[in-house]
C-alpha cells in the first residue's frame, strides 16, 4: 500500500501524481466522459457570478420572449430575464442541494448499515425492519405532509429525504457487510483483538462502500429530479429564485411561442443526469472488475 514512505516531499508529490495518473488511466471511457462532463457543469455553476452575462432575477421589459441568440444566448422569458444566466445560477442550487440530499444520508446510512451487518442480532433486526418499512413509504406523500406543516421550500425536502433516504444505503452496506464479515481478513482483525469500531471503520467500510457509491449516482439524479419536480408543482423552490424545475414550470404557458424557456433548463437537467449516470455506470463496472466479477 504505502510506497511513499521515502520521506522527501517531492518524491511523495511525484508518487501521488503518478498514482492519480494511473488511477485516471484505468478509468473506462464512460467514467472519464461522465467525470469531465460533471466537472464542466460544476465549474460553470461555481463560476456563475463571473460567467453569467445578466443578473438572473433582473427583469427587462424591452427584451421580452427573445429567441436564443445574440446577447441572450438562451433567449429571454416573459418578463425579459436572461435564461442562460438563470440556468447557470439554478445549477448552483440544483447541484449543491442534490449533492447534500444524496451524500449526507449516504454517510450515516452506510455507517448504520455496516455496523448492523457486522453486529447482527437485535441492532440488525431493528435496522432491517426500519429499512423494509421505509422502502414502501410513498416518498412524495411524506414531503407533501412536511410541506403542509412547515410550508413549501427546500427545508421540507431536506427533512423528508434525511429521514428516509439513509435506509437504502443502510440496506446495501448491511448486505455487503454480512458477506465481508465471514471473510478471513475480518477473522484476522478479530484475532488481533482490534475494537469493533476499528474493524467496521478501517477494515469493513472500504469494502462495503462500493455499492453505495454506485447507487449514490442514480440517487443524485433522482434527487435533482425530485427537487425540480416539487418546484414544478409549486411545493419546492419558490419563484423568482432560479431553479431548473421552477423555470420549466414558468415557461409552461409560453411553450408554443417560446419553446426555449422550458426546454433549455430541461436540457440542463438531462445533461447533469447523464453525466452522473455515466459516472455510476463506470463505477459499477470498475467495482465489479476489482472483485473479479463479470464486467
Amino acid at each position, binding site marked *: 500500500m504505502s510506497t511513499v514512505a521515502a520521506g522527501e516531499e517531492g518524491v511523495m508529490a511525484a508518487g501521488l501524481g503518478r498514482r492519480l495518473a494511473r488511477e485516471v488511466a484505468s478509468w473506462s471511457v464512460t467514467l472519464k466522459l461522465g467525470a469531465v462532463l460533471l466537472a464542466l457543469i460544476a465549474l460553470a455553476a461555481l463560476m456563475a457570478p463571473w460567467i453569467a452575462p445578466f443578473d438572473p432575477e433582473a427583469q427587462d421589459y424591452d427584451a421580452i420572449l427573445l429567441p436564443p441568440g445574440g446577447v441572450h444566448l438562451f433567449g429571454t422569458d416573459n418578463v425579459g430575464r436572461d435564461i442562460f444566466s438563470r440556468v447557470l445560477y439554478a445549477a448552483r442550487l440544483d447541484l449543491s442541494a442534490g449533492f447534500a440530499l444524496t451524500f449526507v444520508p449516504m454517510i450515516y446510512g452506510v455507517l448504520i448499515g455496516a455496523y448492523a451487518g457486522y453486529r447482527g442480532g437485535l441492532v440488525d433486526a431493528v435496522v432491517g425492519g426500519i429499512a423494509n418499512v421505509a422502502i414502501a*413509504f*410513498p416518498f*412524495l406523500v411524506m414531503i407533501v*405532509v412536511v410541506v*403542509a406543516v412547515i410550508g413549501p421550500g427546500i427545508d421540507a425536502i431536506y427533512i423528508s429525504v434525511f429521514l428516509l433516504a439513509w435506509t437504502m444505503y443502510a440496506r446495501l452496506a448491511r448486505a455487503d457487510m454480512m458477506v465481508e464479515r465471514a471473510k478471513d481478513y475480518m477473522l484476522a482483525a478479530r484475532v488481533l483483538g482490534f475494537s469493533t469500531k476499528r474493524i467496521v471503520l478501517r477494515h469493513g467500510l472500504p469494502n462495503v462502500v462500493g455499492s453505495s457509491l454506485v447507487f449514490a449516482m442514480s440517487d443524485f439524479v433522482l434527487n435533482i429530479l425530485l427537487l425540480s419536480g416539487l418546484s414544478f*408543482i409549486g411545493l419546492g423552490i419558490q419563484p423568482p429564485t432560479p431553479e431548473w424545475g421552477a423555470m420549466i414550470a414558468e415557461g409552461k404557458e409560453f411553450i408554443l411561442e417560446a419553446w426555449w424557456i422550458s426546454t433549455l433548463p430541461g436540457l440542463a437537467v438531462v445533461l447533469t443526469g447523464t453525466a452522473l449516470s455515466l459516472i455510476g455506470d463506470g463505477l459499477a463496472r470498475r467495482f465489479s472488475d476489482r472483485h473479479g466479477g463479470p464486467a
Partner: protein
Amino acid sequence: MKALRYILLRLLGTLPVLIGVTLFTFLAIQFVPGDPVRIMTHGRLGDAEVEAIYERLGMNRPLAVQYGSFLVNAATGDLGESIIQNAPVADLVAEKVTPTLWLLGMGTLLSVLIALPLALFAAARPDSAFDHAVRAAGMLGFAMPPFWIGLLLIVTFGLELGWLPISGFGAGWWGHVVHMILPGLTIAFFLAPILVQSLRASLLDALAADHIEVARARGIPEWRIYLKHALRNALLPTLTVLAVNVSWLVSGAVVIESVFALPGLGSLLVRSVGYRDYPLIQGLALVFAVIVVAINLVADLSYGLVDRRVLRKLP
C-alpha cells in the same frame, strides 16, 4: 396451505408501513404552528365556530384517542371529513382514484412493452452496437425530468401533430386509453430504462445457465429458448425491481397528473396542501400508502407463487 400462509404473512408485513405512514402524518400535523382550523379557514371564523369544528372533528380529544379512532374509522372505510370541500374524504378519493390507477397501469404497461423487446435484443448480442445504444438511450431517458418530457410530448404529439389529446381523462373506456397514452409514455421514459437494465442483466444470467445449453443441444430453436426458457426466469427479478420502484412511480404520477391536468389523486393531494386541508392530507397519505403497499404485495405474491422455492423457505 403454504401458499395461504405466505399470503397471510405478507399481509401482516404491510401493517408496519401503513401504521408508519399514518402515524407520521398524524404526528406531523400536530406540529403545525398555531391553530390548524383557523389556518385552514383563514381566520374567518369566530371562536364559537372554531370550537364547533373541533367538537365535530373530535380534535379536542387526547392524541392517542384521536389516532386510535382514525385507524378504526379508516379500517371501516371512513377517512374523516374534508374541511374545505365539506365532503367525506372517502368520497373525494373514490371520485379521483380511477384516473390515478389508469395512469399507473398504462405507465407500467407501456414501460414493459418498450422494455421487453429492447432488453431481448440487447441481451442477444451483449456489447454490440445495439446494446450500447440501448444503454445510452436508457441513461438519457432516466435523466429526463418526467414533467419536462410530458411538456415536450404535449407540444409534439398534441399541439404540433394533433394526434393525441393532451389533457383530461376522456370519457368511456376507449377515451381513457387514448387520453392515457401521452401520460403513460411520460412514465415509460423513466421506468423503461430501469426495467431494460434489470431485464438485460437477468437475461444474461439466465442464458448462462446449464439448462439453456441442454436446450440448445436438444435442437430447440434459438428464439424459443429465448422466449420460453430464458425470459421466464429473467422476469422474476425484474418484477422485484418494478416493485422497488413503485414508490417512485407513484411520486412521479403526482407530478405527471399536474402536467396533463388529470383529475386524479395527485392533483387532489397538491390542492389539499394549498388549502391546508389537514383531514384530506391525512386521508390521502393513507390512500397513497395503501396503493404502494398493494402493488408491492401483488409483486411479492406473484413472485412467491411463481417461484415455489420462496414458499419452501418459510419459517
